[in-house]
């Protein structure tokens, strides 16, 4: 199994979620994060002075999937989260050795 971690622009969440559901992904976990990268941050004004805010609000989506679904999911996220502008985000894939569903104790595939 794989753990897919995607950093996306906040207002893209709904579209991404829908397309993943369409693929049969039954769940995901979302975290509000601040991202730093090529995309330039905003400047806040304070007493006439400008202050550069280099961290931008992003959303981190974590999805655990069976290995065979990996490409489909990556594909769905990339197409839905893309705007073509700098700052669209990244997708990271890490190995997932074990999954447990707390409610039932089911493990791995059955737990997703």
């Amino acid at each position, binding site marked *: 199994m794989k753990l897919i971690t995607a950093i996306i622009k906040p207002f893209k969440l709904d579209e991404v979620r829908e397309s993943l559901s369409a693929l049969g992904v039954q769940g995901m976990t979302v975290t509000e994060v601040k991202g730093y990268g090529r995309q330039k941050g905003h400047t*806040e*004004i*304070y*007493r*006439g*002075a*400008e*202050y550069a805010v280099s961290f931008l609000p992003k959303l981190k989506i974590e999805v655990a999937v069976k290995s065979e679904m990996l490409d489909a999911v990556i594909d769905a996220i990339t197409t839905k989260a893309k705007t073509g502008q700098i700052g669209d985000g990244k997708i990271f894939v890490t190995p997932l050795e074990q999954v447990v569903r707390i409610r039932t104790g089911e493990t791995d595939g059955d737990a997703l």
Partner: protein
Amino acid sequence: MMKIETLKKAGIAGLAGLATLAASAGTALAAAPKFDTGDTAWMITSSALVLMMTIPGLALFYGGMVRKKNVLATLAQSFGATCIITVLWMIIGYSIAFTTNPNAGTNAWIGGFGYLFLAPMGLDAVNSGLAPTIPESVYMFFQMTFAIITPALIAGSLADRMKFSAFMWFMSLWLLFVYCPIAHWVWGGGWLGAMGALDYAGGTVVHLNAGTAALVTCLVLGKRIGLGHENMSPHNLVLSVIGASLLWVGWFGFNAGSAVHADHNAGMAAAATQIATAAAALAWMFAEWIVAKKPSVLAMISGAVAGLVAITPASGYVDPVGALIIGIAAGVACYISSVWVKKAIGYDDSLDAWGVHGVGGALGAMMTGMFAKNAINSGAKGWLIDGNGHQMLIQFYDVAAVFVYCGIMTFIILKVIDMIVGLRVSPEVEVEGLDINLHGETVHD
């Protein structure tokens, strides 16, 4: 305040004046003075409005501008100052500021000590010189609310780094050794009032005074850790907008209330206040819009406060056009002092207590001399309209006297407190935040 006015009136006019007042308030001969219910209603209302300026007004205005980790500590400063000053004012403050010292010579400098704990203030007591148509209990309370907000304003320059214990000491000593004497000099029968200084509601007594103390305090305390590279922009301007709005609303008690009557002077003061405040808010906003390309909310509310400050000494003396000009000048001047001068000189007046209250108060005091209009207030003759250039000199003496006396005394008080309890929190506490360390509380979210 009425005082100047009455002072200046020729005896007869003066008597006439009092007579009318008395008349409109019923027979003046009754054993118990008959108070004017309209004046009394307005002055109790004004007192409540001015109290509202400090809590929650000023508390929120400042609280929204600091970083989140210090918001509760900042509220605690306004609230704590309100409490300690109320008690000290009842014990001795009112007596030395607004009662007459039996010794005429001494009275030029400080009031009497006969009113400790307000003991002589009975049900029918009246401060006939300063507030002839209302119960003294009301006048004492009204002046108390001024005594509360003035020291509380200083908190703007010491935000984010002073010990709470030191702060409470500071408020107490500053009230007794700086505010009370100066209030007596200008309003209580002291030498500045006698000289003819025009300060309707406290441009020098309140704002320049608090602003000067704020400047000295931030110089003594030094800069906040992280100033310059850390983002110290306001954590929640919603709070600051609520605060600025309540300051604005409450300020009608401050300026119109200083008429000590519900009359045409109060009305004109209210109109002037509203006009100058809006003009200053727009002036600061446009100045920033031009320079920084965006009209920030902080610019609008800072400008509004600058206008309120500058019109304070002038409110009862100028006409609407005078108010408009004073407002515009205040918005631009305070913008420059808070944004450019501060950066140039490099002191850390955290929330611009000096930049807004000090500069705005001094500017307002001088412009009062320029635009005061005898047709608006029989107790005043200004330079531009009435051709009384000499008034400018008097206004300057007033400004200089307050600046010098307050500056020196504030420095001494701070040094004494620093020796005894220490002024500044430890770097760890400052970095981690005052809320949790000084008060054991945080805002959960």
